[in-house]
């Protein structure tokens, strides 16, 4: 998708989008995050939790890329590696600067990393835990501006006011503390803070999961508006398929640290190629009482990532599994243009999607 370069009026960092404006903003190649498991007195490493195991994807400019999957599949770990809150075990994370210059985030020294934080921000799931209760809104939202010597005094005041307005909060509340705000308002505060340095890329880790539906709608609309207005690009982590469908342009479905399917949102919902995706779609509770309530339920639990099953990780729960699935690991292969799936039978199975 082509995007027009942005020219924010009150930019904390004035980017000159001098490059071509083409190509992905972020490329993740063969990312691995293996956490050591230590045991005993000597804390010897007895194994590894392969939280993220060879994950590759790219995020086009001005789009929302979704990561979805059950709890523990490695979504947050992927997000944290991307912004270097975690140092990946292996892999490349390539970010494209406004002048088209590629930057290897995994190799940055601490000083360059600090500069990079202006470009890439993260918003967390829990709006209660992520805001310091002893700071006022002005301090919370203004902090990145102060730390990076972007502004002070009246200037700071004005910029914070503008940021609050941008996320739909009244600047008059600037001197209040977080406890005076509801969950949805706190999530707006987190977004305002993330926007302070005028980032180009935001990792949103389940930003609406803790919110009520009506508030969730406000935040999803806000995220869309910010994309349209400022050309923001997002990595959007969620476990709710309806939310993914509403906000993402492309999606990767993760299972036990690996991507099992990746394509455009439309394609994923219409014609899933992996049995796990089909099961995820089937599990969504549909707000329509006239729909048949009886349906296929995926049995069993997510396997332990420290000790995954042989062959295809999904085989113990898969309704279509054959002998080969127990023995051989299927590759993530392209079955249609831009549509990847990790299943031995992706080409043959006629899986149930949704008419959208």
């Amino acid at each position, binding site marked *: 998708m082509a995007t027009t370069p942005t020219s924010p009026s009150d930019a904390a960092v004035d980017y000159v989008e001098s490059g071509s404006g083409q190509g992905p903003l972020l490329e993740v190649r063969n990312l691995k995050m293996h956490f050591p498991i230590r045991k005993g007195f000597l804390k010897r490493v007895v194994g590894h939790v392969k939280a993220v195991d060879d994950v590759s994807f790219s995020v086009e400019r001005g789009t929302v890329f979704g990561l979805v999957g059950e*709890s523990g599949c490695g979504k947050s770990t992927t997000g944290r590696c991307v912004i270097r809150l975690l140092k990946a075990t292996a892999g490349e994370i390539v970010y494209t600067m406004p002048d088209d210059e590629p930057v290897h985030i995994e190799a940055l020294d601490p000083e360059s990393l600090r500069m990079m934080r202006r470009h890439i921000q993260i918003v967390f799931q829990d709006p209660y835990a992520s805001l310091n209760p002893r700071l006022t809104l002005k301090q919370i939202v203004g902090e990145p501006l102060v730390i990076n010597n972007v502004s002070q005094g009246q200037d700071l005041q004005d910029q914070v006011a503008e940021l609050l307005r941008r996320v739909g909060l009244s600047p008059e509340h600037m001197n209040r503390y977080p406890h005076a705000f509801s969950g949805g308002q706190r999530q707006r505060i987190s977004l305002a803070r993330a926007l302070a340095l005028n980032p180009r890329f935001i990792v949103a880790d389940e930003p609406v999961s803790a919110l*009520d539906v009506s508030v969730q709608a406000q935040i999803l609309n806000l995220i869309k508006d910010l994309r349209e207005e400022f050309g923001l690009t997002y990595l959007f982590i969620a476990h709710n398929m309806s939310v993914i469908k509403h906000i993402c342009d492309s999606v990767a479905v993760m299972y036990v640290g690996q991507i099992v399917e990746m394509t455009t949102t439309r394609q994923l919902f219409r014609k899933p190629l992996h049995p796990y995706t089909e099961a995820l779609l089937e599990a969504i509770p549909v707000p329509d009482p006239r729909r048949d309530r009886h349906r296929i339920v995926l049995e069993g639990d997510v396997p332990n990532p420290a000790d995954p099953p042989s062959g295809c990780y999904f085989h113990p729960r898969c309704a279509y599994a054959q002998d080969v699935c127990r023995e051989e690991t299927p590759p993530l292969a392209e079955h249609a243009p831009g549509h990847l799936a990790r299943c031995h039978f992706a080409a043959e199975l006629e899986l149930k999607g949704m008419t959208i």
Partner: protein
Amino acid sequence: MADRAETILEVRNLHTHFHTESGVVRALEGVDFTLNRGQVLGVVGESGCGKSVTAQCIMNMVPSRGRIVDGSVIYHQRNGQGTEAIEITALPPKSREMRRIRGNEIAMIFQEPMTSLDPLYTVGNQLLEAINLHQDVDRTEARTLAIHSLDRVQLPEPERVFASYPHQLSGGQRQRVMIAIALSCNPTLLIADEPTTALDVTTQAQILSLMRDLQDETHMSIIFITHDLGVVAEMCDEVAVMYLGKVVEQTDIDTTFYSPRHPYTQALLRSIPRLDDDQDRRLEVIAGSVPDPSSIPSGCRFHPRCPEFLTGVCEQREPVLVQVDEGHQVRCHLYDETASSQPGTQP
């Protein structure tokens, strides 16, 4: 299906307040609903509207700072030929009678299985305790019942689960254990407070399907508390919608989704992201946010956010629950003829 329209539980005009350092929290200010035997009633509403407090009142387990200041909860117990009406809210919470009802008649499962299971005891211990509390059985019988109840909630290897500690089980398995404990005494009424909110969609689908099977098998009545309208559509026969401590609408499931009357119910339904949405559709949002319980709006408490707000009426007087159709109650001035035709006459 049980006899139609035989009431099992009535909640009438329930008012419950909490006394805190920063003042009185009026958590419930008019909760009314009726549950028929063998039915599943969904109680929905946004965070803080009073769903859990309502459940606590039905169990007669309101925390010490809280008090039921008005209204009643009446449980219709079957015995022999007929039924006997027991006013739960008139019983002392620790009385023998109340303890008998809690467990033998009414059981509850909670949102967070980890906080309601004791991490220091095995699943088996906790199940046996529940069984021994309410049933007069010897040790081997109790154990057989316990294993059977784990089997009934479709836990693989019930013997192994029996000997496990809660942290050795997955979230879905813990929730199955909670259900097994609640069902071990064959309650007639089950209250489930957000039993799947903390779970993944796939695990949620497993638990919902299990609860449906158990309901088909036992015909127990269920109060299903949730804020997920998708879950409501899948599970419930009836729905009570709450807003800021009041029930604003109660009707059957189909009417709730296809012809809701209260502007809040209508707005809530419009705000959910749907799978059949056009990608570019903006979600309709409810203006503003839920007010703080310390500054509840005058008149109809939904009026500052209501798109249908009648000036001079809605901010002036509290609407009463009116019957708009058989089995369909709405608390809104739009449907209250006495209110809209003669504004300002009621006190």
